[in-house]
């Protein structure tokens, strides 16, 4: 039996994002909140592992109260237990404070129940793109981490080892790791599934267990939220645009002239 933990983040769908250009802030109104797509891969991978090896999936998230919706969706991936860490004191956390908040909760869950064999995270969240929280949590749990995971080739629960494929700049690394290990997942690691209707119904009825900063998870307030975050936003601004050059309308100048203009530039730049 495999004891799995999946960590997810609810994010604004950045493909639909709009910015108030005067204030440089995000217009949240009307922007749909989704589960970070890489975390969906982690959920799908967990779901497949549960089917193959049997076991139990715990899904955790830190976020505002409405992040419960992301957890409810996780139930569609056959999550057995869903956990929401929410408190004003968690707000404004950078990646150091976030990894602390998650790691303390994970240690508490392990103490109250039993240790996890495998931790699955997305490779990064699409709103921050930092890719720091997974390795940060692994460092705090003092366990190995494999980032950019694309596939689990084999899992041997008796020998407590796992064989993982990892994407690098030069190719695919095949790694043998001991359990417990934390994997951060690429899109290829797992594909979204179509859940049976009964599971979707169950997801609608299931509510997460909610934990705050005030216990029973032992949090030290100076490590939480903004207070526990070494980094600060100093300034935000909208990037300057480069000046616009010449515009030609194909209908007016014709293909031949347009091509000559391009060739002229290619020659000027010494690439032709």
């Amino acid at each position: 039996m495999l004891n799995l933990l999946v960590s997810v983040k609810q994010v604004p769908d950045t493909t639909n994002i709009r910015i108030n250009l005067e204030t440089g802030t995000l217009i949240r109104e009307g922007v749909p909140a989704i589960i970070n797509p890489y975390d969906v891969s982690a959920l799908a991978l967990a779901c497949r592992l549960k089917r193959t090896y049997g076991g139990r999936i715990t899904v955790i998230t830190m976020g505002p109260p409405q992040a419960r919706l992301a957890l409810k969706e996780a139930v569609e991936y056959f999550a057995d237990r869903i956990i929401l860490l929410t408190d004003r004191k968690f707000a404004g956390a950078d990646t150091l404070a976030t990894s602390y908040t998650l790691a303390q909760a994970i240690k508490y869950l392990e103490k109250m129940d039993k240790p996890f064999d495998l931790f699955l995270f997305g490779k990064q969240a699409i709103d921050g793109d930092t890719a720091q929280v997974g390795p940060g949590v692994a460092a705090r749990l003092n366990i190995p981490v494999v980032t950019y995971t694309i596939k689990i080739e084999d899992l041997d629960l008796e020998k407590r080892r796992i064989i993982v494929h990892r994407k690098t700049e030069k190719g695919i690394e095949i790694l043998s790791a001991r359990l417990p290990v934390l994997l951060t997942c690429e899109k290829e690691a797992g594909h979204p599934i179509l859940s049976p209707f009964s599971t979707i119904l169950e997801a609608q009825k299931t509510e997460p267990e909610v934990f705050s900063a005030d216990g029973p998870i032992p949090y030290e307030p100076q490590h939480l939220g903004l207070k526990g975050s070494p980094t600060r936003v100093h300034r935000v601004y909208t990037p300057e645009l480069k000046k616009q050059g010449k515009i030609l309308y194909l209908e007016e100048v014709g293909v031949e002239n347009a091509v000559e203009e391009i060739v002229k530039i290619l020659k000027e730049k010494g690439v032709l």
Partner: protein
Amino acid sequence: MRGESTKEVWVYIEQEDKVIHPVSFELLGRARILAEDLEGKVAGVLLGYEVLDLTSEVFAYGADKVYLVSHKALSYYRHRAYAKALSEVAKQYKPEILLLPATPHGRDLAGGVATLLETGLTADVTELSIDKTTKKLLMTRPAYGGNIMATIICPEHLPQMATVRPRIFPIPEKVEGKIGEIIEVKVELSEEEIGVERIGFIPKEKTVKIDLAEVIVAGGKGIGGKEGFSKLFELAKLLNGEVGASRLAVEAGWISYEHQVGQTGKTVRPKVYLAVGISGAIQHRAGMQNSDCIISINIDPKADIFKISDLGIVGDWKKVIPALIERIKKEKGVG
């Protein structure tokens, strides 16, 4: 970490198979400018096994010192071994600033190291400078998919850490024969503790060197499919260039991720960037707006890409690109 530092600006020297990734040199160049503002020194941190020979290159690109950890367990990159080695060196010698490349290798390492050092880390930085009054590092990065730029500081913790995008800063001039101080640091590492072992490797069939290309022919949603991209490949080949793509084209499955330019893809600065059927969403622009010259072809006169183009052609690329291919073939006397 809190407390006093040495005013040293450190650059993590990324090496694999005893070859230094050129982004390390870009960072050494930038570190020099930061160190001058701080009146401090530039140091490279080199981890590996039997890599002493590489130190001469690190000095040649501007380091005053090299911190070297040599251990068999570091013979190839593994997160735990490298994270422990780098964080122990930093704990012992207390840099003011620690810069790493925002490559998969550097990003993997940085998250663990910052946690072990209990300090802040800013990812994917595209601008670095020293605040004149506070003498703190100003780290600027695109946020919310490049829609805004955010300048981040790490006022009370050390080192101030950032991963920095490749191809943002130029490689400094190489000074052959320049030498400096090598400080060898011993770190205890055991296989048991590292917990991960490489048992195989499947090399990529062909590495797409898009970030080093002088000409990039890039396609977006307007290309419409794989067949369209084959035209762009033909053109890129004639110009000794590479093919780039927007996120939409990659997500549609028309071309592989290695070709993606933009916030979540590669940052490029070729001599000529030819954007075909790309609307120019800010996420894409973030990865290519520093190109020397941008030429764009788009059917929509309102496309944002035109705002940053040196030459914009409003019209159907299916008419322009084949004619351009024929014209270049004629020029080169082929086909």
